[in-house]
């Protein structure tokens, strides 16, 4: 990257920052003090979500693969306490619309960040990468996945299915740790590879959970 483009980037960032800082309330026209404020300080109108904010920013959590899921859930509930359309039934229509839009954006952000797989893919996309759609042909690996799927399909007793559940959860957890490390190392190729593997085990997990439900197992 040339010095010039570096400078321009920096400049753009700064001007963007200024724009956000000086964002004025759509309702009363006064400046909103902080870009992160949900409501206007003067007229108390609900503000639009800041453009260009990623899901981490929207949720107000640190941008990291190892995010604290309890913290995320707490933030989610807190945000929805203020944003939920039910709270705006008696407000002006524009505010109702913003609340609907904002609230569903928060839902989407929460859902995406909560699951380790979707969180990983989202972070990958923030870095301009994606899991390729090409077909996997690693026979040994596919055999393993096929067999695991068949084991789940054929599991009859509660013990069998719960054992598989435990084993699969441990597998997912171990993959999660590896993904986290790969993100930390900035090794995106590895992240892509690992998330692909994680996707197969997440699919198996979905099968296991469906089987647990259909068998009426209560935990």
């Amino acid at each position: 990257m040339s010095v010039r483009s570096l400078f321009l980037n920096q400049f753009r960032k700064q001007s963007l920052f200024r724009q956000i800082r000086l964002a004025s309330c759509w309702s009363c026209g006064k400046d909103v003090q902080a870009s992160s404020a949900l409501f206007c300080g003067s007229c108390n109108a609900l503000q639009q979500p800041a453009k260009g904010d990623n899901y981490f920013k929207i949720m107000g959590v640190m941008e990291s693969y190892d995010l604290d899921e309890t913290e995320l859930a707490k933030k989610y509930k807190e945000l929805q306490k203020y944003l939920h359309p039910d709270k705006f039934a008696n407000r002006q229509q524009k505010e109702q619309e913003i609340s609907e839009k904002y609230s569903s954006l928060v839902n989407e952000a929460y859902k995406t960040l909560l699951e380790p797989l979707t969180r990983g893919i989202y972070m990958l996309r923030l870095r301009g990468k994606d899991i390729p759609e090409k077909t996997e042909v690693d026979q040994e690996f596919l055999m393993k996945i096929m067999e695991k799927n068949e084991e789940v399909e054929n599991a009859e007793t509660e013990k069998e299915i719960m054992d598989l559940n435990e084993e699969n959860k441990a597998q997912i957890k171990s993959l999660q740790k590896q993904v986290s490390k790969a993100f930390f190392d900035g090794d995106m190729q590895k992240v892509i590879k690992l998330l692909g593997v994680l996707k197969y085990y997440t699919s198996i997990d979905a099968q296991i959970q469906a089987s647990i439900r259909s068998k009426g197992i209560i935990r």
Partner: protein
Amino acid sequence: MAFLVNNIRRCVCLKSFSTPNLVQTTSYHANVIDHYENPRNVGSLDKKDKNVGTGLVGAPACGDVMKLQIRVDDQGKIIDAKFKTFGCGSAIASSSLATEWVKGKTVDEALKLKNTDIAKELSLPPVKLHCSMLAEDAIKAALSDYRIKQQSGEKK
């Protein structure tokens, strides 16, 4: 297979959640549902049989795995085909249809089978095209496995 029916809505293929805030209302085409609820040719053939070709493929973006096997007679005609797929409705329907179509074809004819034909027959939406692609790759892998087996058989 019954429990798979519960999964029909669960295939969160990675493509589809790039459109946030959109309620997904896309429903499956009748042909997909037919193949999904009454899949044809589910099962396995003997992998070690030299007249059997096995194709095992997967989609890392979906977490789907697909096994497709063909049995070829001495005239080079595919006389039987079986599949086993763990994945979404479209992937199951694509592989089910693929086994139906390759049966009775010669090896060379089967090679010409295109994913676009499968997608057209099942009216797959763009986000599901890769499911039919997976079925095509599975056929190709099975045919290639069969060829390799035959060639190594001749050498002996």
